[in-house]
Structure formats: C-alpha cells, structure tokens
C-alpha cells in the first residue's frame, strides 16, 4: 500500500499518539476497501483516501475534541488584506523564526512548533507542505472552496511562525 506511510504520518500528527494513529489508519483502510466501488477510476486516489482519513479523524474522540477548541475564522483571511500584519514597519526582519530555523537546522524546534498548532491548522501544513498536495486536491480532501484553502494555509503558516517564536527564545542555542 504505497500511501500507508503518508496516511500513518498524518494520522499520528493529528491524533498525537501511536495507538490512535493505528486505529485511524485501519478504519480508513477498511472504509476504502468497502467503498472502493464508489471510487471513480481516473480521479485522484490520494485525495479520495485522505478525505476518508480526515472524515474518520473528525468523528474520532480526538477529532471531536479538537473541533471544540478551535473556531476557524476564514473571513479574516479573505486575501483582500494588504499584508500590513506581515510588514508592520515595512522593514526586513532577518531574525525571523524561519531564518533561525534554517540557519540552525533545528528540526526538533519546528516539530515542536507544529505540535502546538490546533488540528485544523496543522492539517493544512501536513497536506500542503508534507504531502505536497495542490490546493485543488486539498479542497477535495477538506470539502472547502479553494479560496478557503489559501486563507487557511496563510493562517496556518502565520500560526507556525508564532509557535516558532515561542519555542526559539533569544539567546537560546540550538543543535546544528
């Protein structure tokens, strides 16, 4: 099963423990087998099975708990803003968390920052960056418009930057 590593990786990130991740992947696998006749040959299999994984996660205990804690406000990221929040002084900040990260190569810090993200934002990072899905595929998986995909990814990356800043305090040294 070529997608098993990807499914398990995303399942573990979302459920945050091995046992739940295994249950999630197994349930996804069973649903995919039962519903395979409904899969349209030639359509996107990866998006199809990740959609099953995601819906299964949402109905799990961990998924329901995650939904209770986060309210996505996509309208705040409708793409019409001027980006002022990213450029408070129109100056180049060369000490951003990302630059520190690249300079120091601290993979653990980034993973810690990812762990701090709420599930709805983490799944955007996982699908877009880790699974390298296109917006159209992500829209299929999450059943949301492409514009919402874009705004959520922007919001997820902003949240990741904030999380990185909180994990990388000034003067702290990181292992190369």
């Amino acid at each position, binding site marked *: *099963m070529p997608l*098993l*590593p990807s499914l*398990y*990786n995303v399942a573990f*990130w979302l459920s945050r423990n*091995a046992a739940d*991740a*295994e249950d999630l*992947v*197994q349930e996804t*696998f*069973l649903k995919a*087998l*039962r*519903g*395979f*006749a*409904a899969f349209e*040959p030639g359509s996107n299999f990866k998006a199809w099975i990740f959609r099953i994984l995601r819906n*299964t996660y*949402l*109905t799990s205990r961990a998924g*329901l708990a995650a*939904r*209770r804690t986060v*309210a996505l406000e996509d309208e705040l990221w409708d*793409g*019409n*803003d*001027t*980006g*002022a929040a*990213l*450029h408070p002084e*129109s100056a*180049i900040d*060369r000490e951003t968390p*990302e*630059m520190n*990260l*690249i300079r120091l190569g601290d*993979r653990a810090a*980034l*993973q810690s920052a*990812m762990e701090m993200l709420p599930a709805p934002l983490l799944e955007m*990072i996982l699908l*877009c*960056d*880790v699974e390298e899905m296109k*917006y159209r595929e992500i829209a299929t998986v999450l*059943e949301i418009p492409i514009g919402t995909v*874009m*705004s959520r*990814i*922007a*919001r997820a*990356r*902003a949240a990741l*930057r904030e999380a990185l800043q909180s994990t990388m305090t000034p003067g702290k040294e990181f292992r190369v």
Partner: protein
Amino acid sequence: MTDHLSPGFLTALADGELSADQLALVNEHLAGCPSCTSSALHQSLLKSATAKAGQRYTPPPHLQERLMRLASQTSSQPDASTLRVAHLSPSRPSWRLGWAAAAAMLLVSLSLVLLQRADRRTENASAEQAALVTEVFDQHIATLAASLPPQVLSTDRHTVKPWFQGKIPFSFNLPESLPRDTTLDGANLTYLHSQPVAQLLFSIGRHRVSVFLRQNPGVGTDKPIAEHSGFLVMEFTSGGLEGFLISDVDPARLGELAIAIAQAQSGDQKQSK
C-alpha cells in the same frame, strides 16, 4: 501594486499556485519591494523546512500485517460486523496472504468497476447521494462540536419559521405537536451542495437531532435509514421539500420525528402558519 503582498499571495507564491498573470504582477512587485521579497523567501524556507520536519512517523510493521489480514478478511467476509470482531481477535497465521493479496483484491474490485460501466449512471446517483449523506453528517458533527448557540435560539416554531424568511428560497412547515420527549431547540441557515438549507435542531431526550430541509422537485417517498459512522441518517421528500434527519437516537424515535415533519409539509397535520 503599491501595497505589500497579502498573506494569501505570499502563500500561493510559495506553493506555486499563482496563475501566470498573478505571477507576473507579483514578480513586478517583488522587484521593487525588499520587504515582500524577504517575506516570500521566508515563506519558501519555512515550507521547505516543514516538509522535512513533517515526515516524522513511520508505520510499525505490525500495522501492515494487521491491514493485510483485514484485506483478506474483507475479500472473503465483507460483512462489517465480522470485520469489527476480526479486528479484536488475535492474528491467525493462515491469513498472512501478504500485500499481493490486497493488491489483487483491489485490482479485482477495479475490474468490476470497469465492467459495471453500463450501470455508471445509477452508481453516480448513489455516489452523489452518499456524498450528500456525508455532508449532512459533517454538518451535524460540526454543530455538535461547536459551543455556539443556534443562529435562531427558540423552542417556538412561530419564531423559528419566520426567521428564515428571505434567507432561503422556499418555505417549510413545522409540526404543531412533536413526538414525546422531543423539543425544538432552534435552527441554523447552512448549505448543502452549495444550496441554502434550513437546519432545524431538535432534542429527543438527550440525543441531538439535525433536520436539513431543502428544495426538491421529486414526489415524496420515504427512504430507508442509512448509517454513517454510528449516526443514523433518514431521508424523506414531502411537499416539494427534501429532508434529512441525522442523530444517534433510536431509529424508531427518529422515524417518528421524520413522519411528523414530513406530514407537516404535505398538510396532513396541523402546522405552524
């Protein structure tokens, strides 16, 4: 483009999702804006680093073995309840068929799908219906998970029904009397398949029920209950409306509510005006 690039544009740039025209505009802006150039670089670096850091967990070998067993069981015993029991049972050496068996089964399934092209129209209708049920399910789960009150919070049908005036392109009726232990909690305006629908919220005892009403030109016939991830979904058509009820309550009690609402649409019962 005089303002700075929006987060959306920077995100789409890093993800390679800009159209050619958009990319030309963005490149023109970046040529004269060091701040946005820096932000764009940061986005790309972050994306690259995240892609590597996100590859963190690998499936344990025993999971692959378990999935292989389930695949073989599915091919011989497709009953869902049997699969659930099998999941809890210890492994059996005779079921170690390997991934080849799973792949073969998928190929067989695929072949069957291709052979059944003649029935594709029917299958597509079923798939569309299944997608609708999934959407109903997702909406209901989202409602349960949200801590927000309904958009119209009232147990009075004379308050709930008028609230939808001008919000949906149809009208509906609410039953004058509800089945025992059933109360109206409120309603939301929501969307199914991009169509505005009324989501009526009921409680049957401690069980929450969502009833989605939308326009439907079909002639009313009650349809069987479907199960979706432990929730029951019942569909009815009546009075030019299509309704979906979803809950984890007893099927008989969900059916009582479905009948009451369906009869209210057809005028067989006293209704709210």
